């Protein structure tokens, strides 16, 4: 049976915890993505779930250790000239606080390994595939008319490109709800294709064939930019993506094809 003094302390701690939870709940809409921008692809959603899981463990560790540190600082400040007990260590404790972190990191690794496999799944062979060329200092997005996705028989052969400049940021278009593959190419230096709402980036490396797949799950216009220092105008290598319904995408493609200037017959 705890004494009344202890009970009062427990009650106070309970009150504090409830107040803290309430405070967190009240400001949580501001942290809807837990600091991350809105995920607009299935893969980004998986990555955000992993981020939130990792963050919760990280915050738990942070508050536990920082709390213990603050407690020690206030509780064990010098009160008398009496020497504290000279404890040199404890093998049992060392084992405990080695084992617990090992278990935590194995958990985190396992979860992140599963997510890694999922977000790195290869594209189906009939998926829309876009070649992304990074150059100093903009991007070129090349569509292959034979690989426009959704199992459609190619209407015609050839390619068309959206070419940007540092002053004229390019906008490319993808359809929502189906896998889209990006093939990254560079002929000058390393760039990095980064779209924050994808929660993903992949380096554009000369001499490497890097590709990744996303499946957008909402429409809208989003902005990305180069994430690897590539020279003087690195900061200006921005681009935009418009995610649209399939019908609108097909219409957009038709417009691009009609604009003969961008179509190159093989």
């Amino acid at each position, binding site marked *: 049976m705890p004494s009344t003094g202890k009970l009062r302390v427990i009650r106070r701690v309970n009150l504090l915890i409830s107040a803290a939870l309430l405070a967190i709940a009240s400001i949580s809409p501001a942290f809807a993505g837990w*600091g*991350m*921008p809105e995920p607009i692809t299935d893969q980004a959603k*998986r*990555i955000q779930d*992993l*981020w939130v899981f*990792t*963050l919760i463990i*990280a915050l738990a560790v942070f508050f536990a*250790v*920082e709390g*213990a*540190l603050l407690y*020690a*600082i206030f509780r*064990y*400040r*010098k*009160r*008398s000239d009496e*020497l*504290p*007990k*000279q404890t*040199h*260590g*404890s093998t049992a*404790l*060392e084992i405990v606080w*080695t084992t617990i*972190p090992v278990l935590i*990191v194995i958990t*985190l*690794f396992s*979860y*992140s*390994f599963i997510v*890694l496999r999922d*977000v790195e799944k290869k594209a189906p062979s009939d998926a829309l595939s876009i070649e992304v060329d990074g150059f100093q200092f903009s991007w070129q997005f090349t569509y292959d008319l034979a690989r426009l996705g959704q199992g459609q028989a190619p209407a015609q052969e050839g390619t068309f490109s959206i070419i940007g400049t540092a002053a004229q940021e390019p906008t490319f278009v993808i359809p929502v709800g189906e896998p889209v593959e990006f093939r990254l190419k560079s002929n000058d*230096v*390393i760039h*990095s294709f*980064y779209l924050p709402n994808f*929660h*993903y*980036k*992949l380096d554009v*490396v000369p*001499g*490497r064939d*890097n590709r990744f797949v996303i499946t957008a799950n909402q429409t809208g216009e989003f902005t*990305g930019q180069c*994430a690897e*220092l*590539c*020279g*003087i105008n*690195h*900061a200006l290598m921005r681009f935009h993506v418009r995610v649209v319904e399939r019908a609108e995408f097909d219409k957009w493609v038709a417009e691009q094809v009609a604009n003969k200037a961008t179509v190159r017959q093989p």
Partner: protein
Amino acid sequence: MTSIAIPRPAYAERPWILDWLTTVDHKKLGILYLYTTMFFFAVGGILALLVRAQLAVADNTFVNNDAYNQIFTMHASAMLFLFIIPVWAGFGNYIVPLQIGAADMAFPRINALSFWLIPPAGLLMFSGFLFGGASDVGWTAYSPLARSSGVGLDLWIISVIILGVSSTIGAANFMVTMFRMRAPGMTMFRMPIFCWTMLVTAVLQLLATPVLASGLAMLYIDRNFGGSFFDPNGGGNAILWQNIFWFYSHPAVYIMILPGMGIISEILPVFARKPLFGYKAFVFATMGIGGLGFSVWAHHMFTTGAVLKPWFGFMTFMIGVPTGVKMFNWLGTLWRGSITFEAPMLFALGFLSMFLIGGINGTFSAAVPVDFAIHDTYFVVAHIHYVLFGGAVFAVFAGLYYWFPKIWGRRLDERLARIHFALQFIGFNLAFFPMHLLGLDGMPRRIATYSESSGWETLNLISTIGAFLIGVAMIPFIINVVMAFLRPKDQPNDPWEGNTLEWWTTSPPPVHNFDSLPEVHSERPLWDLRHGKAAH
């Protein structure tokens, strides 16, 4: 108490300036190291303020893109190569021989060479500004971008190679000193923990630095003699540079933080009046970090698509374990202690609370898919500054306040120190915490500007204010040092009731360090003398 008498050599008097230029005394060299590195800390800090001034508001034109790339490149290069790495050599030079009861380093002339390579290398690196621009490709100097940069990069390469030579021969010197020159009775497991961290750091330097030197030589050949090591068009491989660079530069992060951990581990026991909790566990954790440090380099390269992600992700998670062990040992040292809060302890506790964040926010990059999101964003900038500023720089100041009475025979003022600490602590968190949010929101690092529509302006402005507050925090520190130098030397041998042998001799110590040495029965010989072996 028995003590061992040490024969006293005779010294020839030399003019003051000649004495400092030709000295092979580890203490004078240590002081030269500290002055030089603090100078470059100031230079690097001013460059950081230029970066923050440029990023304070959206679409800013305070400095142009070309200058910006040079400024942040030289900020990082100065801070890492000319401040943090050699500042530990400075502390190590002064303190290690004293802590192990030696009269000097094992190779005093090599020691002098190690130091005297640094000022010319620093000037060489910065001389790029006089020849059409300093290096502007980041301290990581990724190829192929680094193939086409100006002559400033050649100067940078040569400078870093010279600094590498300095740290490699310095490492050999530290290792031999600690292996061969310990006082009678001081077994390896009675060696002060700061020495242990310097020893592991030296091993890392000896193994890693030559690898960087080889990479830099290849880069120099690529740039000047038509090589194509890193040029895919000539049959080379752009990713090869990153592998070589990070094979050095990840262990280098531990080179930059382990001695800081050692300083903290000296200070906590003294001001908590308890021994370091789990001394041996701490030593093994240090070795563990050193060993694992060589197996995690490619976590800087997950987004290249060219590395074995699960392996490097797993090892990166694992390196959190020995780091955690250290954190718990520090907490165990404070637990049930009798803690006082003099300046060294304030900065040591600042280290604990901030390095904790730097440890935790690093694990996000081990979760590879999360790294896809945060890599090369300001989240990583936040991480590295919580480790290297919240960790290493707080440890530098902890060490300066702690050993100032020993090195200069005067004590720094506690009130000014508290002002310094408060300003630095607040400024640091204002400057670097918002960077987490900026990075998550997608702000890439190393961009010279951002548009207003990005929504990054408020957090950047807060960060800039914090950075300037850190600058302001240096004012009470400088006043404190200047005022201390105006006072006479009045410090006793052992002003803090220290544990280790440096507090046995006078403040500052004589040229030959010790007239006598106490017997060493534990890692706290002076504690044993004060309280008797039974109290150990």
